């Protein structure tokens, strides 16, 4: 089962390798990992999606908490989070196919951000599931390249993961 873990860390060099190293040496599999700075420039947030049972998630949480630069670890339950992933997808596209692909883009609410005589590039920000759907729809035209950021997620409602005060 997939779990989304939100991790707040000190924004320092070497933290990413500490976190990533922990996953590999304890035999946990990362599906995706996204990092970015927060509103507090000294803190970064990592959103990690992992595959595993409850034991694995508990161990990951505890082991992450042991790393000194890790400030807060929070597992975001599936139905209490809003998640998004940004994808850039370059599809092979002749002039005659352009209309069809534009229709798919419109249907899925993807944006067209670049066009050449042989390709068309789409930008899509949505859930992992909808990203898979878009990919499926575009596959018949030959996907030349796809770049995904990995999932980022936030809790629904007014709760926040960490309040330093």
């Amino acid at each position, binding site marked *: 089962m997939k779990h989304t873990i939100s991790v707040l*860390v*000190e924004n320092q*060099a*070497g933290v990413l*390798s*500490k976190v990533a*190293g922990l996953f590999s*040496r304890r035999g946990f599999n990362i599906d995706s990992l996204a990092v970015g700075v927060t509103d507090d420039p000294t803190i970064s947030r990592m959103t990690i999606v992992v595959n595993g049972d409850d*034991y694995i998630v*508990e*161990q990951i949480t*505890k*082991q992450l*908490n*042991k790393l*000194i*630069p*890790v*400030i*807060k670890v929070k597992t975001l339950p599936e139905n209490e989070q809003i998640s998004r992933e940004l994808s850039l997808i370059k599809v092979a596209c002749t002039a005659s196919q352009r209309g069809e692909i534009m229709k798919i883009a419109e249907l899925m609410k993807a944006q067209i951000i670049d066009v050449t005589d042989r390709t068309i590039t789409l930008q899509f920000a949505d859930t992992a599931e909808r990203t898979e759907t878009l990919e499926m729809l575009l596959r018949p035209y030959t996907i030349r390249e796809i770049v995904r950021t990995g999932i980022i997620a936030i809790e629904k409602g007014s709760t926040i993961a960490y309040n*330093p005060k």
Partner: protein
Amino acid sequence: MITGAQIMVKALEKENVSVIFGYPGAAICPFYDSLSSSISHILVRQEQNAAHAANGYARISGKVGVCVATSGPGATNLITGIATAYMDSIPLVAITGQVRSDLIGRDVFQEADITGATEPFVKHSYLVKKVEDLPRIMKEAFYIANSGRKGPVLIDIPEDIQKKSMPDFDYPESVKIRSYNPTVDGHALQIKRAVEAIAKAERPLICAGGGIFCANAQEQLRAFAEKCNIPVVVTMMGIGVLPTNHDLFFGMVGTHGKSTANKAIHNADLVILIGARVANRSVSSPNRIADNAKIIHIDVDPAEIGKNMPVTIPIVGDARLILQGVIEKSDYKAPDSWLDTLRDLRSKAKPYNDRCDFVNPKLFMCRLSQHMEPDGTLVADVGQNQIWSANHFEIREGRFLTSGGMGTMGYSIPAAIGAKIASPDKQVVAVCGDGAFQMSMCELATARQHNVPVKIVIMQNNHLGMVCELQNKHYNCNRVAVCLDGSPDFTTIAKAYGIRARTASNDQEAESAIKEMLSDNEPYILICKVCPDESSI
């Protein structure tokens, strides 16, 4: 103006460090140049042994052990020693020189990414980038190493940072790390639940690990066991929490443990684990034990609870404080019938048989402990000698040190040197096999140079005994690469280092050699001829 190197030395002084173990090199030279006379430096003969010596020193002194090495190979040689300390939760600060900041990443002479290489084995590490950060980093390193679950912290300091000056130096009085707040006090409700579970138990058992020593909770453990009449078994790291001859003590558990201890843990209806990690050598079938018993697990590291064994009542915090709480709230007494069963099993232990052709290592360990001062320290190496020591050395008021988690061969001699420096008035004896001895015999020079009178017992069977046993049992007696032919004559080696030595070929000779070895305060090597077919159990 003060340089980075001077700050390092001042910080060590502020942390009450009086001895460090190390080996110099180009990238750490500014630090060595600034060393003051208030800190004595023990020059080891290989960096790994600096970490082991600091480990032995830390375990006996209760202070943070400090080891120092240069960049590149000096630093990488430390790795096994750091990993050994990590596995046994020993507080160390390892200081390494690094190449100049502007050269990092260019693969220059003696450059190694030591913070990267040690990442899995350190509690925390620093690569110092600014001289201004040094005071804070030094302070934090000592605090992190010696708080919560203790462990090694590495500080990697480029040569130019050591040379750089800053106008003023203020050593921080306290540490504040927002992301590091180890739990100390046990949760009151969990303690209450534990007391209730203990009250209902019919066959309770305490299984104590090395965490008891980390928390300095020997007294509380003993008080708890005695007040509640609960039998105690230990993991290898827990040996010494109770005197071996204590009525409630039933030995070491595990694959190489005592059968009474293993029967106790498998028949208990309540197991109270304290500062023990439940690794496979100590508890080989944790789920089977948990099926039959409730488990109370007390540990300062929440990640250890539930990692290897299902647990009924977890209590995170300092073992000393938690045990204090349990003692105050509990007025339980375990039924005598349960203890009688265990005592009965214990009394059936086989007596030692004297040998005339070889030294019986089990009898030897028993006799050695009887001849040693009650507060002496035994440092066991790894291999059959470790098991003989663990099961047959009788602890009274002293300590038993060994590399329990990592199982690092060659640990005993450097660790004994560190232990002896930490307690110069107490006897310190290292026991090793002829394999491990040859891994760290270079440290005889360290003992000589710095006048550290450690006593060394070599169990000589000309084989890697533990591996032999394994090959006999699981690999159809196919003995490969376990014969130590080509080993030097150890008495000649001892003589070359100016150390008195004697060989014992049977139990009688061994006993008089023990007496001679312990009769003065000089280094001594006692070689025991042991039968290659002697089993570890």
